[in-house]
């Protein structure tokens, strides 16, 4: 996967209530969810975000609830990847399962600024910040995480097992 977009930058411990507040969870429609993405901490995000944009955040991104609505809302808002110092574990699993690219790269999470234009290449394991000219590399996924991305998410993987593909 290779994507280029502008950066929306956030701090540490961005929780799933901030990504999508519980009051909007009485729906499973991705577009409706996307309409409230990041609302409680960044009311303008939804208007600012363009297809391909990238979220960059600090530590423990996606902590809190198990709601898969969080990565779904981010993906449906058009975000092509989330780069963070690190992720909360349920969010991490959920993102892999639904095919939202997530990248753990502390150096990039630190250095990249809001509004920078950035290209992410998950095959090469590189991040290029075109605004500052800086380049970063990150470790490719291993184990089941790599298999999940390879398969295109958990649904096709289970289809394989059930012979329903």
């Amino acid at each position, binding site marked *: 996967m290779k994507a280029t977009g502008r950066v929306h930058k956030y701090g540490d*411990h961005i929780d799933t*209530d901030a990504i999508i*507040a519980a009051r909007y969870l009485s*729906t*499973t429609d991705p577009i409706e969810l996307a309409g409230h993405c990041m609302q409680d*901490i960044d009311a303008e995000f939804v208007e600012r975000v363009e297809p391909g944009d990238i979220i960059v955040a600090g530590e423990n991104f996606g902590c809190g609830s*198990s709601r*898969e609505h969080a990565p779904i809302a981010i993906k449906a808002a058009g975000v092509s990847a989330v780069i963070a110092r690190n992720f909360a574990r349920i969010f991490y699993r959920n993102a892999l399962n639904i095919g939202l690219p997530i990248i753990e790269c502390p150096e990039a999470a630190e250095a990249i600024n809001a509004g920078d234009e950035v290209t992410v290449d998950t095959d090469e394991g590189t991040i290029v910040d075109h605004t500052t000219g800086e380049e970063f590399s990150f470790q490719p996924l291993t184990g089941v995480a790599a298999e999940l991305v390879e398969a295109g998410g958990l649904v096709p993987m*289970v289809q394989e097992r059930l012979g*329903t593909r």
Partner: protein
Amino acid sequence: MTITEKLLARAAGRDEVTPGEFVSCRLDLVLANDITAPIAIDEFRRMGAEKVFDPARIALVCDHATPNRDINAATQTKKVRDFAREMGVANYWEADQGGIEHIILPDKGLVIPGDVVIGADSHTCTYGALGAFATGVGSTDAAAGMALGECWFRVPETIEVVYTGELQPWVSAKDLILKLIGEIGVAGARYRSLEFKGEVIDNLGMAGRFTICNMAIEAGAKNGVIAPDETTLSWIEGRTDREPVVLASDDDASYVRTVEIDCSALEPQVAFPHLPENTRGVSEVGDVPIDQVVIGACTNGRLEDLCAAAKVLEGRHVADGVRCIVIPGSHEIHLQATREGLVELFLESGCLVSTPTCGPCLGMHMGVLAEGERAIATTNRNFVGRMGHPKSEVYLASPVVAAASAVAGRIAGPEDL
């Protein structure tokens, strides 16, 4: 090996496992609720699955927006109910058997020592109190679990938490876990297991143990666990026909870190907005007036919690201008609380008593906060907007501190009254 490693090894059909490796485990129970099940059901269908792996090992609990707060919520609940019927899921209940998932599943004997459980709810870690491995996952993982009866895990490293000394009056399980989160932070146990032990845990009843394991996720942990003992085994007696598998960490088990907490000097704790790690002793809170109090949730909605709150409220009255909402964690607890006179005591002291629901805990309904309003709650999260308006505030505390605050009209401990 640690108890968590043993639980995972057993469910993976292995003699041993080491932290960092990936294992596929068979599941004893898969849970989803009215928020997460609707997506899980869609994904289950997309997977092409026609039946669940075992209808007796699925639990679908509608508790977050129930009694249905609006048409959308009602539609979601109906979707879950219809799916439960279609699949013959035994563990789906209507209101008279229902309540908050993490309270009713253990109460009904659906989790016992040795089990491996996933739930599409982050507080699934509550069941670690029974000596089970239980962890939160998302809807798609839950769908795969329902279809296959299996789930993959990365074996976590374990942090050992030892509580020593003797608890002071009015100090309870909630204070023990808030203190720990204050010490290690909300990411302090990220991807790791938290194993709680020590004389204080040994002397704690099951209600308190559930409270502690419930908030393991608030330190980022994959699971929280307490090795089963006499307390555990006598608690599950009469609740299940299955044989418990009692495991414990080896003496030479390796821990990535040990945290020791001396409880002799521990006072009731309060977590300030907007993270559960912002804890202080109640004596250091200062003057914090409140608009609302919530006593309930999967953290502290058990009968023992209501009794503790009642002890403080007895013969007293909620302060003018404060709404104090008491929410029994299940229909059964509501009935017990009524029989024991607690409901009358709450009503007389000026509290509202709500039907069992998550409701205000996640700002869904039944006590949503307006801009600028402030609540103290026995819930487990105080993130921005958690109980309503993004500019409202939630402080976390135990039932006795919540009750004392209701009486004082500002955050207070029972000894301040």
